[in-house]
């Protein structure tokens, strides 16, 4: 195999890995800080993707404006979902089942509005590629990867350095003591749920930009994104980015040296090994 081909494979692995990270970022936050394994995160992503398709395609709005509209809308959705789950005091296990139910509902809704057929957002926004020596750098993918990296870094810094971030971590370690030093645990969990929702919105917008959409595809993202979340250590924003890249690149290389259909083997074998031999990591 030529060096160029391998290089281009790694590049495409970086792009798909960035997307895994972007889609997993909200999930990793709600899993760690809310103890909610939110399968409906994928439903939010697809709802946002279809909304983007609608507004930027037939609606004719510029995609960047659509992102700016979709993010706050899904902040509200995330917030509302968390208020609902908190009202019923849903635990980690029940959250899987309930949010799966929500995902089925969202899938049904999408199919009802947009049909089960594939749709594709046709836009002139950032069409084409830059060329760097022998390599092609597609503009839309580049923007998405930059956004994923930026959001992961900003989120990590937010958790690390701000008062809210510290209060969130303290509340996780010891909610009662945190409360007795004035930390409003409940408000913060609604905030983090809103942020996770907004991140799903942004991820969905990019998904509409890059992929052909069909409602049944919601489920096909579960495995790989959950793998990125776990490999990156649940709750870590930089971890999910690194794990996303690791998965994307290992998939791309596996595909390049064998056949495309072998792609899932590397990341999931890695995940199994980590879960078995290093369970305290996640």
């Amino acid at each position, binding site marked *: 195999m030529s060096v160029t081909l391998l290089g281009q494979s790694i590049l495409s692995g970086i792009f798909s890995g960035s997307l895994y990270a972007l889609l997993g970022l909200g999930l990793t936050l709600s899993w760690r800080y809310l103890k909610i*394994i939110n399968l409906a995160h994928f439903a939010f992503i697809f709802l946002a993707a279809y909304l983007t398709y609608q507004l930027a395609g037939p609606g004719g709005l510029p995609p960047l404006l659509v992102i700016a509209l979709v993010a706050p809308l899904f902040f509200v959705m995330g917030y509302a979902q968390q208020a609902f789950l908190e009202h*019923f005091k*849903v635990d*980690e*296990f*029940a959250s*899987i*089942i*309930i949010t*799966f*139910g*929500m*995902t*089925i*509902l969202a*899938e*049904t*809704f999408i*199919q*009802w509005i947009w049909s089960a057929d594939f749709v594709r957002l046709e836009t002139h926004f950032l069409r084409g590629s830059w060329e760097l020596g022998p390599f092609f750098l597609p503009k839309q993918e580049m923007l998405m990867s930059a956004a994923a990296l930026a959001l992961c870094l900003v989120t990590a810094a937010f958790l690390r350095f701000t008062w809210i971030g510290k209060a969130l971590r303290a509340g996780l370690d010891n909610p009662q003591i945190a409360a007795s030093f004035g930390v409003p645990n409940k408000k913060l969990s609604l905030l983090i749920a809103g942020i996770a929702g907004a991140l799903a919105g942004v991820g969905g917008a990019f998904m509409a930009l890059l992929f052909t959409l069909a409602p049944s595809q919601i*489920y*096909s993202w*579960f*495995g790989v994104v*959950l*793998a990125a979340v*776990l490999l990156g250590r649940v709750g870590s924003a930089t971890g999910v980015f690194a794990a996303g890249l690791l998965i994307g690149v290992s998939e791309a290389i596996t595909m390049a040296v*064998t*056949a495309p*259909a*072998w*792609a*899932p*083997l590397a990341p*999931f*074998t890695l*995940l*199994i090994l980590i*879960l*078995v031999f290093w*369970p*305290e990591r*996640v």
Partner: protein
Amino acid sequence: MNAPAVKSYRGLVAILAATLAFAALPLFQPSPFLESFLYLLFFWIALATSWTILSGFTGYVSFGHGAFYGAGVYATANLGAHAPLWVCLLAGGLIAAVLGGAVGFVVFRVRRLRGELFALLTLALAIVLATIILNTPIDGGPGVSLMGVRLPRIYANPSSTIYLLGALVAMGSLATAWLVQYSSFGRGLFAISDDEDVAEILGVPTLGFKVAALALSSFLAGVAGAVHALFVSYVTVGETFSITVPLFVLLMSVLGGARHWLGPAIGAIFVTTLTNALVGGDWALAARALIGVTLIVATLYLPEGVIGFLAHRFRARAKPALAAAPIVEPAPEVGPKRPIGDVLLQCDDVHLAFRGVRALNGVTLEVREGEILGLVGPNGSGKSTLINVISGFYRPDAGRLVFAGSDVTADAGHRRARRGIARTFQIPRPFNRLSVLDNVVVAGQFGARGLDHGAALAQAQEWLSFVGLDARAQALPKELNLHQRKFLELARALASGARLIMLDEVLAGLTPAEITTAIDMVRKIHASGATIIFVEHNMRAVLALTDRLVVLNQGQIIAQGDPRAVMQDPLVISAYLGDADAHP
């Protein structure tokens, strides 16, 4: 769910009758639509029931059921043209069982493997398996056609034969689930799902049981898959390993009730009927939406599924009858107080540290047959850690434990229980979803006595009346007050037939009147022949009860001997009250 007081085979008889009725149905030439609908029903019943034997009964949720079912599907797909059908079915089941057993053997050894990690692990496993099958000659990519498979001519019409196989597998799965639920195996699994650590120290071999449940569950899923390959007649990796298969199985079980053999079948009937009754366009969408809503509402309002809900209603109505239950004859024979005998338990220089904190620092201790040994010390002195080391919950870093002449240092908790070590918990840890009676039955079946079901049941009732809980035998632990839950712990320890019973702060949180009855109870337990280690903060009770006292401080024994003399020891006084010089 709770075992019936008298073992009734009604469920099994009903399954048998249903099997015969379903098997005979093709003779009446039903419409092909009905036959294929019923087949699908059977398929989902089999798959959901098999899932429940692992995930419903033990609480370890598997998202990888597609892997085990898929192993069966591809067994038929590959062997069907070369081997008789029964070989395919058996091979499908066995391959899945071996796969499941091997996975279980590896992953269940991981201590503290949390439930959700197990779920994701099984999900990843299914994906890896799907990738391998897709890329090797097992499938190769385009899928496998089963046109060449010869079906045995049970019925003239091949689709009737497939229908019959489906019926047999579904009814077989139900019968298996029934047998498991009402066996000691099943009671062990329920105990694991409520509190795995307590199950282990009561004598349930938790690792072996979990592996066995996974293997059995996989076997049934594999057979169901092997039959299903015939039904779809053209298998692809995408369809077989789709995430929707395990998710629907989970949905059905949760809906119907995952802790009962019949629950998943109820869920399967509901979901399959709904999706098949409402077909085409918007109706299919409505059916799907209804499933989504049902899933949410059922999780919020029916946490134990339809069958759990019905059982509660039934129990609520049956209550008055239970109050009139016959009171069994008084306590088991209480022998004369035995003289203090040989060394029963020997702890030899036991060390244990957590993250650098020395919890036990060279504890050497003998407990003699027939004594009540008091174990006291300030907070954090290592009493609970020592109890945990003796019961097998922690492995010591160094040192040796010898019980009744055998070295038990390396034994797992359930083996020590079998040898005759039992304990109670300061904050009672009953199996919350088993009845009071069943809590005690578990101890009798898995503890040192190792009784069969009938004997364990009879003795459990006696022990309950011994501790005064016979009227509450059918209640759930959460319906008891603290005092009664503590006595339930005592009944469990007694039912196990232990030679050594460690009582961890039985008196904490009790009112003065309750303390008096509890002290009497400890005396009675001692008189019945057990050796007791009595951990307690209430010094008056310690002085009243114990033959000998051991004082721990900072992980070391600082004094032992006659209780009153020990409490006058200056070292002990300073350990409790602070520096001795403050007390001239």
